């Protein structure tokens, strides 16, 4: 009996538009290995299904432009003003943005596919906003899962799946290495992103963003520390570094972001290949 091949997982963490770097990662890796599992959280959930279903690099770059366009923020300014003035009704299902543009863009990402239509197992991470728990989505429509995983609190309204109100996967698990381990991966290639800190604070929104970044970066650091120490699989964390802070909608920088992802992946490639050879 032939020895079973080692199971390889790709994990793409939260990081907004920076997650486009995973296109560059895939550009490098698809030549070298085949993947048995893909996990995406928040911004990473945009790319996980595209890689899993074998979308082309160009298609992924094009879809990125549509997801991270300023247009998805439709209604934000007016709603934020209304919220400040106290005239906006807000509850656990609300967001400051009208999400119709985002939903339209996600059609291009998910193509009306169900999880069961995709050959490579795919897991999308979201957060239950009432219990705070991590939720692993792996059935039903891919678009629903991506939409839930991308529901940045206060910006996009939460998304309901099976009676649970779901928000951004980055809030509970910004780099879901744990999910890949639970699924039995032997080799885990995990692309993660630290959030940048602000230097100027001109509004309450800026302070809230800062608090969010502090929490998420500390969670990320603890995640690495834990899995470096405790895991049973081989984990390659790929953390592309960006010289300048990127705004959420710097679509013109997408080619540069993809290139960064490619570079960062190439640095790890010799180690990944060595391990693959050793294990085969």
């Amino acid at each position, binding site marked *: 009996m032939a020895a079973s091949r080692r199971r390889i997982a790709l994990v793409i963490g939260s990081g907004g538009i920076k997650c486009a770097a995973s296109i560059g990662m895939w550009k490098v890796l698809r030549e070298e290995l085949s993947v048995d599992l893909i996990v995406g959280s928040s911004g990473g959930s945009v790319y996980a299904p595209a890689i899993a279903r074998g979308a082309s690099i160009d298609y992924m770059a094009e879809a990125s432009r549509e997801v991270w366009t300023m247009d998805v923020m439709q209604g934000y300014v007016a709603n934020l003003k209304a*919220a*400040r003035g106290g005239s*906006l009704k*807000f*509850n*656990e299902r*609300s967001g*400051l943005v009208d999400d119709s543009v985002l939903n339209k863009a996600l059609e291009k990402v998910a193509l009306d596919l169900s999880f069961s239509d995709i050959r490579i197992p795919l897991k999308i991470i979201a*957060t239950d*906003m*009432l*219990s*705070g728990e991590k939720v692993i989505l792996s059935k039903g429509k891919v678009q629903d899962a991506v939409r839930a995983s991308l529901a940045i*609190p*206060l910006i996009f309204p939460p998304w309901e799946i099976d009676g649970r109100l779901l*928000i951004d996967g980055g*809030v*509970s*698990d910004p780099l879901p290495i744990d999910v890949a381990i639970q699924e039995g991966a032997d080799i885990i290639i995990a692309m993660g992103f630290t959030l940048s*800190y602000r*230097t100027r*604070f*001109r*509004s*309450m929104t*800026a*302070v*809230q963003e*800062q*608090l*969010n*970044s*502090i*929490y*998420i*970066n*500390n*969670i990320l650091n*603890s*995640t690495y*520390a*834990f899995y470096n*120490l*405790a895991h049973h699989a081989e984990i390659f964390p790929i953390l592309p570094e960006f010289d300048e802070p990127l705004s959420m909608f710097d679509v013109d920088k997408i080619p540069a972001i993809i290139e960064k992802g490619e570079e960062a992946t190439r640095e790890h490639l010799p180690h990944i290949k060595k391990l693959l050879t050793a294990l085969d």
Partner: protein
Amino acid sequence: MSREDRPKVALVIGSGGLKCAAVIGLMQVLERENIELDMVVGCSGGSIFGAAIALGYTPDQLIETRKKAWTDDITKKLSLASILKIVFPRIFGFDDHIGIIDDSIMAGNIENTFGRKTMFSDTLIPFYCVTTDFHTGEAVVLSEGPLARAVRISSGIPLVFRPIEWNGRLLFDGGLSNPLPVDIAIQQGADIIIAVGFETPLTPTISSPGQFAMQMFNILQNQLLYKRYAFFNAAHHSEIIPIIPDLPKGIKINDVSKVPFIIAQGKAEAEKHIGYLKKMLAIRRE
């Protein structure tokens, strides 16, 4: 047995607002059992009790400390300057020193309790006070300088109380970087760590953007707590004894009438672990 020969015992009190008063119940049990501490680490609400314990206060004195430092009016006075900056950010010059509650009552209480001139060096056993750098997100551990000021900084819930400058860094609530700082006790050479920690309760309904943001921050803090705790449980060489008192949701920072109940719950939880702690002490002594 002299202090040098026996295992070093650390008490870590995590972030938890008024719930941190549960540590008084634990201290009642430790006093009864003649268990001495060698160091204390405190974060956020836990730093008030941590400082008092490091100063050698008895459980009865801790109850008095709570009454003096943590009155029900600490959130009563709004900071008009901050509110104007939030509502009219351009006109009043929004900056990073925002806190919607005027912190003078809280800061005054803490100073009156510990004394304005009391320093970290005045504590009987070492005390480490965990804060967070507002600009870099790093945990910053304070262990020298004015004690009351450090405690005030560590308890500086974001957006509620303003961050404060300390040696050129803008610092606030330790809960954002290290809500249950067992790692500090490990670094300081503790053999046995009693860690009193609290989850932040979530709310089932939301009726404003502010509440929505709070829910998100509370989820994040809980996730940070679990991830860090998992790491230190896997990584440490010392024994960590977690004391997680059973407390209902909805204890607000000014719910001082609930303190006797909180203390009783802390004591009940401590009683469950005291047998194990004594066993650990005995083993480590051999």
